[in-house]
């Protein structure tokens, strides 16, 4: 960043004594444009020494996926985005038959169970119930009086969302793949932590009268940022970062205007 051409040093107008052009010895004051010494690169030093980087919603060590960072003035946008309370989409992979203490496949084994009685229909039924109870929680935590016409209209459009602090709420779940003992779910949620998602996988296992551990948690969308906008490891260099910021600016602005 420091190698980029910085702005030109400030120029100021000073009255400098110069010997008179006719060589008579008298000193005249002529106004000349002179670069201010204080602005000289050697005096000022490198332009950027520290960068303020802020992180968006937390991502676990064991999880992967989209992670939003704000740089410099972008940190102010981060708080605004947080107040928008947009949903995040995760791809969660699970494995039936095992139960561990930290709900993931690298924890200490607690129990092993059979799972051959589990079918895709049973799983989808459980997911429907989870969605139903979370839908209720969505309406309850949004702090809208249920008796008003406004509440009814928002409920029809599906726009009711908790706009303040709330426990984790799942807005939609879908089963992407099902091949015993493995399965993959797509979860849309609000205010959650990755450990909560792993616990959810464990609870799904219990509800199906078996047990399950979580093998993979990957965030595929965080509000407006999707996997396509995200930069993979290979592209963590200045040009890609600048390009990505430029591409996302418009999306972020429209989303903020819509919500606030």
């Amino acid at each position: 960043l420091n190698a980029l051409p910085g702005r030109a040093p400030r120029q100021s107008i000073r009255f400098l004594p110069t010997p008179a052009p006719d060589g008579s010895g008298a000193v005249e004051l002529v106004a000349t444009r002179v670069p201010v010494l204080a602005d000289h690169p050697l005096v000022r030093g490198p332009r950027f020494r520290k960068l303020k980087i802020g992180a968006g919603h937390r991502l676990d060590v064991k999880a992967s996926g989209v992670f939003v960072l704000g740089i410099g003035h972008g940190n102010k946008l981060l708080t605004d985005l947080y107040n928008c309370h947009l949903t995040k989409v995760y791809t969660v992979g699970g494995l039936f038959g095992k139960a561990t203490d930290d709900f993931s496949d690298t924890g200490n084994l607690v129990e092993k169970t059979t799972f051959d009685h589990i079918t895709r229909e049973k799983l989808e039924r459980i997911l429907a119930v989870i969605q139903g109870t979370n839908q209720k929680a969505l309406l309850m935590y949004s702090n809208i009086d249920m008796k008003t016409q406004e509440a009814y209209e928002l409920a029809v459009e599906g726009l009711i969302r908790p706009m303040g602090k709330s426990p984790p709420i799942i807005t939609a779940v879908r089963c992407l793949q099902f091949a015993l003992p493995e399965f993959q779910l797509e979860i849309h949620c609000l205010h959650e932590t990755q450990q909560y998602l792993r616990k959810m996988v464990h609870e799904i296992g219990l509800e199906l009268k078996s047990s399950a551990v979580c093998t993979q948690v990957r965030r595929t969308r965080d509000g407006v940022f999707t996997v396509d906008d995200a930069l993979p490891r290979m592209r963590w260099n200045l040009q890609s970062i600048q390009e990505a910021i430029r591409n996302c600016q418009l999306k972020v602005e429209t989303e903020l205007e819509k919500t606030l």
Partner: protein
Amino acid sequence: RRGLGVAAGPPSTRQLREVDGAAPVFQYAGKAAKRKDRVFVWGFSYSGALGVPGFVKPDASWKKPRRIQPTPYRLETEEKISSAACGYGFTLLASNTRDITKVWGMGLNKDSQLGFQRSRRDRTKGYEYVLEPSPIPLPLEKPQQTRVLQVSCGRAHSLVLTDSEGVFTMGNNSYGQCGRKVVEDEIYSESHLIHQLKEFDSRVVQVVCGQDHSLFRTKKGTVYACGWGADGQTGLGHYNITSVPTKLHGDIAGVNIIQVSSCGDGCLAVSDEGDVFGWGNSEYLQLASVTDTTQVNVPRHLPFKIGKVKEAACGGTGNAVLTEEGNVFVWGYGILGKGPNLTESAVPEMIPPSLFGWSNFSPDIRVAHVRCGLSQFAALTNRGELFVWGKNLRGCLGTGRMEDQYFPWRVTVPGEVVDVACGVDHMVSMVRSF
């Protein structure tokens, strides 16, 4: 080899596999695990209608009596219940079995609507309130062959439909709703009398109780009615009492009716072609689309252009129909389900499917059944979810809150809801476990 000075660290794959192989495997449910059928009840419990004696008379001194059960509560039954009906403070549960005991009743029994329940303390007297599901003895000719198909409850009378022995009626008969001649000054409490009705043009396939009248639908598609007729709910062309089931004419003569519904003083019928017919009370704009009178005593066709109707449910002041596409239309008066602003409508208004869980994410959710209580509505989706809305009288909606519900709200039931019966202040649902 781990020495004492080496830290544990995250377990390596090899360690995990070793632990995995050595652990025993537990089995909680085998491959042939069947889904159990359960009954859930909720609402006002002091009448005994919920069938849980612990709510009315707690078995331990530190327990307090529970006046209202605000969320679904599981009721233990001896047999698998195939049909349930809620009346005004009492409930009937029926099973499809060939055993001798086929019908159980609980709740108010002041008019013998649950038959004669012999008191254990005095063998000559009967119980006025039945707190537990108690068997109802039916005078069947072949008790080990006949099956009970359906039960229905009105304000103070009940009907039991069997497959080969006609319809049994019990309870209050002051308006002839039990299908027998009205006896003046008859005392209905502690009565052993259960009347049997067999004279219909073909086998009866559905029985429905309104507040003080009864409707019978036969296999041929005809409808019979008896009982109170002051609002025209018997549909026989007059406003008097009928004490013998009589065939209805009017707009439904010759039409093959596939479903009849009634809860208060109005009635709705659906034909096989998807047309809706109504008669009875119209004080709340239920039939205002065809007539201005407040009582209609002949069945009239309701010309609604909402598509082919699959099911209708007639409530006390509001009605609901379900079309073939799975949309619910409501009209009438009261809390109709479209927010607090819509309190009355003479023409059917559609409830947006997004309120029942339909979205771009799950586009195949459809409403499968609609049921009505006196001032509540219930809808069942094809995913087995139960949505209720309407006046929350003594907690009957089962949402856990005491406030009225102005738009469809999910009831959390641990299982897939197969059927629901709505009464005035309580509801019973038949649920299949996961």
